[in-house]
């Protein structure tokens, strides 16, 4: 016992029970301590650190040169780009197409308003402590209606309040967001329903959910999009026109709902039986038990999986190009076929990559923040 006391307090002795808290030895905490522990803790680690520094020194300057120092930012065609770096003039000139596709310029204010409405609709869903949350939630609930009429219009002809803009004219980031947001919003509740159905005691419900999930998960999204755009019209009666974008939205939503269902089922299975028993013993009905006790915990556990599915869905929206819708990536491809800008694929793809990344990274950070916020100190 006395050995331990001595080794803890070199050169100093305290009577038992009166040992004060001492500061840690120098060099084990703070910046130097961190460097020593993390970057130079052993010879292999030191070699790796030096290699990494070398790699960064060699690779970063050329990238910065291309992106900024030797790049051209203005011009009317690629012949105006004379320096060695990127030709961002392309983005400058074609920005509207990247963002909105072929949406008529005169009506673009509707897209801006819709964007604002969307932003206001998202806020109260993401954060529970913002002011006027109830009013904003009403806006959120109305979003499918307001968004639809704002973007697609109320009718054609001079009398119409908002002129119709056909969905083939929608494109770029606008289209990506329409598909992404709709898919995200629709797939979560459908996924919950499918997950509950798959765990149901009722054989018919269970069989239907299992069949749906396994079928949809078993085929590529492209197949589903093709079927929705090429095959569905074959089965519809003559003269019935079913908007291609709408079919695509349904296809994307159902596709990601199947994945979502399996993610959520994982969460449901992680909830101990005791939670069901305690809820039942207190007299909660099945739906109240699910809503109040099981789903809040199950969904919290699988937040990383849910957001993972969302991110996958958001990027999968680029597959709609295959059925002739020009989303952000589709526009990036199309723009560089213009004779003025031909061959500028680096710039075009880099630009849309940054946009995708910003949205996906945002979702990722939000999920981390939400996990931390919902963590209530229980270990599982």
């Amino acid at each position, binding site marked *: 016992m006395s050995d331990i006391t001595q080794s803890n307090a070199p050169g100093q002795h305290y009577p038992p029970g009166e040992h004060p808290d001492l500061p840690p030895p120098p060099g084990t905490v703070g910046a130097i301590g961190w460097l020593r522990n993390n970057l130079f803790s052993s010879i292999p680690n030191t070699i790796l650190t030096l290699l990494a520094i070398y790699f960064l020194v060699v690779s970063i300057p050329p990238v910065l040169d291309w992106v900024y120092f030797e790049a051209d930012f203005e011009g009317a065609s690629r012949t105006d780009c004379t320096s060695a770096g990127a030709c961002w003039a392309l983005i400058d000139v074609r920005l509207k197409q990247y963002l909105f596709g072929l949406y008529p310029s005169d009506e673009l204010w509707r897209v801006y308003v819709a964007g604002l409405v969307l932003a206001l609709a998202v806020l109260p869903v993401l954060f529970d402590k913002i002011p006027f949350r109830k009013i904003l939630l009403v806006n959120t609930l109305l979003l499918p209606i307001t968004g639809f009429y704002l973007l697609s219009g109320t009718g054609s002809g001079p009398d119409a309040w908002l002129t119709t803009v056909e969905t083939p004219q929608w494109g770029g980031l606008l289209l990506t967001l329409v598909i992404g947001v709709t898919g995200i919003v629709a797939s979560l509740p459908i996924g919950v329903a499918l997950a509950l159905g798959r765990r149901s005691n009722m054989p018919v419900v269970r069989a239907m959910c299992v069949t749906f999930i396994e079928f949809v998960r078993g085929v590529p999204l492209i197949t589903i999009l093709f079927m929705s755009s090429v095959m569905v019209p074959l089965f519809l009666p003559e003269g019935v026109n079913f908007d291609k974008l709408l079919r695509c939205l349904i296809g994307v939503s159902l596709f990601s709902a199947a994945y979502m269902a399996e993610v959520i089922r994982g969460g449901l299975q992680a909830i101990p039986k005791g939670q069901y*028993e*305690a809820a039942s*013993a207190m*007299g*909660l*009905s099945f739906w109240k038990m699910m809503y109040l006790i099981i789903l809040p915990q199950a969904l919290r556990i699988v937040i990383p999986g849910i957001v993972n599915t969302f991110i996958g869905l958001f990027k999968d929206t680029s597959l709609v190009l295959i059925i002739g819708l020009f989303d952000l990536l589709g526009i990036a491809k199309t723009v560089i076929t213009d004779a003025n800008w031909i061959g500028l694929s680096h710039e075009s793809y880099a630009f849309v990559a940054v946009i995708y990344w910003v949205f996906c990274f945002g979702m990722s950070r939000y999920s981390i923040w939400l996990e931390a916020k919902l963590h*209530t*100190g*229980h270990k*599982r």
Partner: protein
Amino acid sequence: MSDAVQRVSTPGVSDEVAIQIIGMHKWYGQFHVLKDINLTVRRGERIVVCGPSGSGKSTMIRCINRLEEHQQGQIIVDDIELTGNLKNIDAIRREVGMCFQHFNLFPHLTVLENCTLAPIWVRKVPKAQAEEIAMEFLNKVRIPEQAAKYPGQLSGGQQQRVAIARSLCMSPRIMLFDEPTSALDPEMIAEVLEVMVNLAETGMTMICVTHEMGFARKVADRVIFMDGGEIIEQNEPEEFFNNPQSERTQQFLSQILAH
């Protein structure tokens, strides 16, 4: 020690029957877990059920609020018979509170929310009133200062006391305890037992599956010994401990009282 609880028999009340189990059988698949259980619990009666693990004691009390389904016989709680009828099950569950070995608090809700959830959503009590009632019971189990915390931040003993308060918030007429102290350290067992003794003194009808023989001696009106899915023996605590009838009971008691 032996007679800390004043047993008042109010005429007409103590005779009233709270729970009646008649010829109840239960199987898990082919396995016959409960065999011909017959038990009548008077209102206000405190029963301790003991027996080796796997003897069916937990299963029996879990049948009383239908966490387990019985296949034969009758269970009548508060004059309501437990059948497949969901209304009956709900009615019985509203009257019967239960505490579990592993507490089963809801980890995503605060202590207070754990206590007010069922009153608000099942009994439709207004939120403010439910919180008032919850604080009253948290006071009774002596942890009102933990109301805003989450279960994960409490010790096992505190969690079990919250679980008891949570059940009491539904103002049940019957309380079931399924090995409430088995998952606890010795010092925490004492604090939970104390709360249970206090509860017993209020005249609550209680069925406790427990191995706490001190508790049984102190508060039980009747001790039931189960083995192999059957009720082997039942008696008043004094008689049960001092003069066990069956060989199996004697063996069991000698094992658990030996240390």
